[in-house]
């Protein structure tokens, strides 16, 4: 969702979104995710300049960052912390949807510029930005591959006949992104 209404998001709602992110699972329960909420208009404008993936004018951006000081000693594989950030993001996206907010996860940003702009300490790196705001109008739900095409039973290629009866065959109403 990228077309936002010119309406701010209440502070308590931003806190609620971060709370949803906080409860996401993480590898070994290390909880490496920290959040920076940007809702100051000047900082938002600057952030948009260094994050080409932010389309439109969101009311706020929630930056999910990874605190490397919480990684395992000697850990060099970034895939697990990336999963942690992604699971936290999904919690936030679902919570936003339940609150009537539109959202769009953004990975197209220059990390170094975002670090400096947000004043992140050396150990804290931005992982994903989530643009947030109230939709300016009806949301066009993008198409998804049919469930029957991607769902298999017991082994790849074995059909799951009832997949074609999935309740959201044409997409859930009011969700998704545009």
């Amino acid at each position, binding site marked *: 969702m*990228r*077309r936002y209404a010119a309406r701010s998001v209440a502070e308590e709602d931003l806190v609620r979104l971060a709370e949803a992110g906080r409860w996401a699972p993480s590898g070994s329960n290390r909880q490496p995710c920290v959040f920076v909420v940007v809702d100051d208009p*000047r*900082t938002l*404008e*600057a952030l*948009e*300049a*260094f*994050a*080409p993936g932010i*389309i*439109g004018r969101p009311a706020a951006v929630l930056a999910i960052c990874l605190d490397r000081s919480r990684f395992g000693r000697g850990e060099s594989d970034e895939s697990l912390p990336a999963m942690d950030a992604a699971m936290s993001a999904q919690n936030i996206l679902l919570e936003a949807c339940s609150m009537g907010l539109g959202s769009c996860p953004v990975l*197209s*940003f*220059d990390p170094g*510029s975002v670090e*400096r*702009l947000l*004043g992140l300490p050396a150990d804290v790196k931005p992982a994903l930005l989530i643009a947030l705001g109230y939709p300016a109008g009806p949301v*066009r739900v993008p198409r998804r591959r049919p469930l029957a095409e991607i769902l298999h039973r017991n082994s790849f290629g074995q059909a799951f006949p009832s997949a074609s009866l999935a309740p959201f065959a044409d997409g859930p109403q009011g969700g998704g992104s*545009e």
Partner: protein
Amino acid sequence: MTEEWRSGVRGPEVAGKATGSPEVAGKATGSPEVAGKATGSPEVAGEVLKVMAFMLSSAKLLGSEPKSYGPYRLIDAAGRLAQAMERCGLADGVVKALAEEIEKERYYGLEDEAETAAFLDRLLEMAVSQMKRPGAAPEGDKPG
């Protein structure tokens, strides 16, 4: 990020170089009146800097992003530039029209190459029509 950026002011010398020249403004808009409004404006310098930061960030990121993002980022940059010109009172009719056209499409993305090409043809036709108008470009700007 420095306070210099936060304030949107890059110093009078930068603002002057970007906008203070009637020659530069005249080439861009063909209007001495508009050139006068732009002279020495820190707002213009701040707006230009934002568009430049967007383009430079895009240039850095596009090397590792899907190829289809390239045209979209350039279209988005053109739209951001047009909107910045509007905010500064520098946009003429065709720039406003281009901004509106880009604005209509930018939220949905351009899903295939043919659609993108047709969209760009429409935008380019608008631009070339304006540039062919008598007096739109100074003598020195004619292609050699």
